[in-house]
C-alpha cells in the first residue's frame, strides 16, 4: 500500500462522509481510468451538438452588429476562449490545492494536464482578440490593461509548464507546480477587473453583468452555446491528457501492464 494512499485512508476513517468516500474512490487510478474511458464518447457527442448549434446560431442566425458588421462574429471564439483561459486556471489551482493538502496523485495529474490546455485557450483568446483588434482599434495590439493581463496569464501558464518540465522527479515537480499555481491565483481577479480599474479600450462586461446583459438575445444564445462547447472540449482534452499522464506514471504497476497485454492480445 502506498504511504500517501494510506494517509488518505486515515482521513476517510475519521469522518466517513459522502464527500471523503467519493474522494477516496477518485484517488484510485484504476477507477478513474475506467470511468473516464466510459465517459469520453458521451462527451464527444455533447461537444459536437453544442459546437454545431452554436456555430450555426453565431454565423448564420445572429444578426450583424449595427456598428461592427460581420467582423463581430469572432466573438463566438474569442469570448469563450477568454473565459476558458481563466476558468482552466481556477481548475488547475483548485486541483493543486487538493494535491497539496490530501496528497492525491490524481489531483496532481489533473493539475499538470490543465496547464497546456489553459495556455492553448489563452493563446486563442490573444490571437482572436488581436485579429479583432485590427478592424476595431486599428492596431493588432495595444498595451491595454486587459490585453496585457491576458498576456501575463499566458506567462503564468508557461511558467507552470516550464517548472514542471525542469524538475525531473515528477512527484516533486507536481508539488512545486501546485504551489506556484496557488500563488498565481492573485492574477485572476486582476484580469477580470482590469477593465473597470483602468477603463481602457477593451470592452467592459457585456455578458457577465447579471442584472441586464447589454447584448442582443439572438447574439447571446449562440455565445452561451459556444461557451458550453468550449467547456466540454476542455473536459475532453483534460480527461485525455490526464489518462496519458496516469499511464506514464503508473507504468511499472500491474494494472497498466495488464492493460497493455489486453491491447496487444
Amino acid at each position, binding site marked *: 500500500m502506498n504511504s500517501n494512499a494510506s494517509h488518505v485512508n486515515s482521513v476517510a476513517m475519521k469522518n466517513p462522509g459522502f464527500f471523503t468516500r467519493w474522494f477516496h474512490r477518485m484517488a484510485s487510478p484504476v477507477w478513474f481510468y475506467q470511468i473516464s474511458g466510459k465517459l469520453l464518447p458521451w462527451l464527444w457527442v455533447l461537444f459536437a451538438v453544442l459546437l454545431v448549434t452554436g456555430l450555426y446560431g453565431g454565423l448564420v442566425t445572429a444578426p450583424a452588429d449595427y456598428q461592427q458588421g460581420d467582423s463581430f462574429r469572432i466573438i463566438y471564439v474569442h469570448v469563450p476562449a477568454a473565459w476558458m483561459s481563466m476558468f482552466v486556471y481556477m481548475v488547475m489551482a483548485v486541483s493543486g490545492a487538493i494535491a497539496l493538502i490530501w496528497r492525491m496523485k490524481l489531483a496532481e495529474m489533473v493539475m499538470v494536464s490543465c496547464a497546456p490546455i489553459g495556455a492553448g485557450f489563452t493563446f486563442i483568446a490573444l490571437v482572436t482578440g488581436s485579429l479583432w483588434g485590427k478592424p476595431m482599434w486599428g492596431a493588432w495590439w495595444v498595451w491595454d490593461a486587459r490585453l496585457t493581463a491576458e498576456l501575463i496569464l499566458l506567462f*503564468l501558464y508557461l*511558467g507552470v509548464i516550464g*517548472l514542471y518540465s525542469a524538475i525531473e522527479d515528477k512527484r*516533486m515537480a507536481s508539488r*512545486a507546480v501546485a*504551489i*506556484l499555481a496557488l*500563488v498565481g491565483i492573485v*492574477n485572476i481577479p*486582476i484580469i477580470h477587473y482590469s477593465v473597470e480599474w483602468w477603463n481602457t479600450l477593451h470592452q467592459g462586461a457585456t455578458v457577465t453583468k447579471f442584472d441586464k446583459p447589454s447584448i442582443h438575445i439572438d447574439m447571446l444564445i449562440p455565445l452561451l452555446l459556444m461557451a458550453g462547447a468550449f467547456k466540454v472540449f476542455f473536459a475532453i482534452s483534460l480527461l485525455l491528457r490526464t489518462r496519458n499522464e496516469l499511464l506514464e506514471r503508473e507504468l511499472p504497476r500491474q494494472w497498466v501492464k495488464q492493460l497493455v497485454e489486453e491491447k496487444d492480445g
Partner: protein
Amino acid sequence: MHIAKAFLSVLKRDVTVAFRHRNEIFNPLLFFSLVTLLFPLGIGPSPKLLQTIAPGILWVAALLAALLAADNLFRSDYEDGTLEQLVLSPQPLSLMVTAKVLAHWLVSAVPLLLLTPLLAVSFGLDAPTIGVALLTLLLGTPVLSFVGAIGVALTVSLKRSGMLLALLVLPLYVPVLIFGSNAIDTAASGLPVNGQLYLLAAMLVLAVTLAPLAIAAALKMSVSQ
C-alpha cells in the same frame, strides 16, 4: 522564547554574511541606478519625456533589482547543505524562512529606498511625488522579496534557474508594479493615492502571512530531490 532567539539568530546570521560580502549591499544599489541610467541613454535626453516615464522606470528597475538579488536567497544554502539542516531543524521552518527573507530585504532593498530620492530628483519629480514614490517602494519591495523567495525556493534545486526564476516571478510582480507606478503617476498629477497605497498594504499583509508557508513547502520539496 527559544523560537524568538532562533529567529533573531538567523536574521543576524544572514545580515552578517551580507555585510561580510559588501557586494551584496552595494550591488543591488548599483544595478538599480545603472538600469535607471540606461533609459536616458537608450531613449534620449528629452526632460519632458523622461519625467513622464520616470515612475515606470523607477519601478521596473526596482523590480529587476529585486529579481536579481532574490537569486542569492537560498542558493548558497542549498549548495553548501545548510538548507538540509534548516529543513531538518526542530525550529519551525516558516519562521526561519521569514527571518531569512527579512534579512534579505533589509540588505538588498533598504539601501535602494535610500537612493530613490536622488534618482527621482534627477528625473525631475517634485517633493510630494518623491514621498509617494518612497512610500510605494517601502510597501512594495517587501512583497517583491517574499514573492521572489517563493520562486527561488521552487527553483533552487535546478542548476540553471536564473531565467526560469524570472519567468515564474515576474508575472507575480506585475500587480505590485502596476499599483506602485500608478500611485506615483497619480501623485504627480496632484491626485490622492490612498486607494493604491491601501492595496499595496493589503498585498504586503497577504505576502507576509501566506508566503512563508509557500516558501517552506517549496523548500521541503526542493531539498528532497
